[in-house]
């Protein structure tokens, strides 16, 4: 029996929290990039510049909401919503603390993988609907990249599933009470982190939107709030990636002294920081470099990891 009142309360809290977080992250990333490049970043609007995203939002709402005459109108308008909606849907299965989860699905990981695959559609059809060269090239690259990373993203998660014996994310976190899965599943973590960076289109794997080559790739034709949706979607998926890493490999809410919710938020923000640090440090890979790296290095490693984990689990259980 589902307690609808509680579910509604959790949903509203998560939605409000996540959208605020996504807006804040835009500012956080710009400040952190600034600090790591020996400058300040936005520090004018509000204390330390914290209201920068609000100012940007007001500006972006006053922009002309332009649809290119050559675009496929319906798809073009629909696409930005897909990014945000699918990413927010993924958060439905994420347990922040025990019991605080919108839908405690027993196939949580599969739902997450499905939603992240759906989010990839927005990139592909967004670039297609824009009907321009750069956007099309961007979505072509996104498709190629998608085929390589989706495979090892799923494979690298299966190790944790084998160890925990469940697809349910809460069960996976509980299975890490004594030992975080980062220790037995380091290869899985590495593979998932790489796939997640590619999924969120972050440097060094932001090949589909490579500014220096493709202007902005698949969202080159988008302006106003439609572009804003892509932007918010990117930061939501960064948050999602960090939360998933924490849940799957770093013991979720488990930790000494502090309350569980603080542990979860702390670990998540460390990974958000790490992702921004990666962006500040690493240059973009070439499209073919990422593809061959994905197929020839990460994917075999993920397979070996899965095989060894499976063997160990079998040996332990018999």
């Amino acid at each position: 029996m589902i307690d609808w009142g509680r579910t509604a309360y959790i949903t509203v809290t998560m939605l409000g929290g996540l959208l605020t977080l996504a807006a804040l992250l835009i500012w956080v990333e710009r400040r952190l990039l600034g600090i790591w490049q020996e400058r300040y970043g936005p520090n004018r609007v509000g204390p330390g510049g914290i209201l920068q995203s609000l100012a940007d939002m007001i500006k972006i709402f006053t922009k002309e909401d332009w649809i290119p005459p050559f675009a496929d109108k319906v798809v073009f308008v629909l696409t930005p919503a897909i990014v945000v909606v699918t990413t927010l849907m993924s958060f439905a299965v994420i347990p922040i603390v025990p019991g605080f989860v919108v839908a405690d699905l027993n196939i949580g990981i599969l739902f997450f993988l499905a939603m992240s695959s759906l989010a990839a559609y927005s990139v592909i059809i967004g670039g297609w609907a824009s009907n321009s060269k750069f956007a099309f090239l961007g979505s072509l690259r996104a498709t190629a990249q998608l085929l390589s990373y989706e495979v090892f993203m799923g494979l690298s998660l299966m190790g944790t599933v084998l160890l925990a014996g469940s697809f349910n994310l809460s069960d996976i976190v509980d299975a890490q009470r004594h030992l975080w899965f980062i220790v037995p599943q380091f290869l899985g973590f590495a593979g998932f982190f790489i796939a997640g960076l590619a999924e969120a289109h972050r440097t060094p794997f932001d090949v589909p939107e490579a500014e220096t080559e493709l202007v902005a790739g698949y969202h080159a034709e988008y302006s106003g709030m439609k572009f804003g949706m892509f932007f918010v979607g990117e930061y939501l998926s960064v948050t999602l990636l960090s939360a998933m890493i924490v849940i799957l490999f770093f013991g979720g809410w488990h930790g000494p002294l502090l309350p569980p919710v603080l542990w979860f938020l702390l670990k998540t923000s460390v990974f958000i920081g790490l992702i921004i640090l990666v962006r500040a440090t690493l240059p973009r890979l070439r499209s073919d470099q990422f593809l061959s790296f994905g197929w020839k290095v990460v994917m075999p490693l993920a397979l070996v990891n899965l095989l060894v984990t499976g063997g160990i689990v079998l040996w332990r259980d018999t």
Partner: protein
Amino acid sequence: MLLRYIRDLLLGLWIVFKRTFTKPVTVQYPEERPYLPPRWRGRIVLTRDPDGEERCVACYLCAVACPVDCIALQATEDPTSHDRRYPDFFRINFSRCIYCGYCEEACPTYAIQLVPDFEQSEYARRNMVYEKEDLLISGTGKYPHYNFYRVAGVKIRDKDKGEGEHESPPVDVKSLMP
């Protein structure tokens, strides 16, 4: 091989992360102002000599030296009020000026000078055109003691030829006497 890549990767992350603890190089301009050296080439002014008269003798050398032709002036003489040649109008179009300082180099009387001030933004382009009243300052600028007419050997109101500092009396070219 792979281990070397991973080491380099982590090393790069660490090097960037260390930047957290360095001070930004940014100068936060409106609050924090950069030091501009005295010879910094900024806004152009017309200076006066120590007696308070205009230094400019309207020789047009600055207008000739100007690579973008932003200086316009016209010489005039008015014996009743001035005892010397002076510019009737002197106009600098700062929307064209490239602050190269050639006018200052060309000026024989140190009249035109560039000062360390760059805050010349205007809302209307026509406000970038400075007239003589806007350009003329009451001081001597960079050369406080230089007084062109005191050393130039020409006659002005209170000084005849040959009466200035380092000047000898004029030679009478029609006389045979040494």
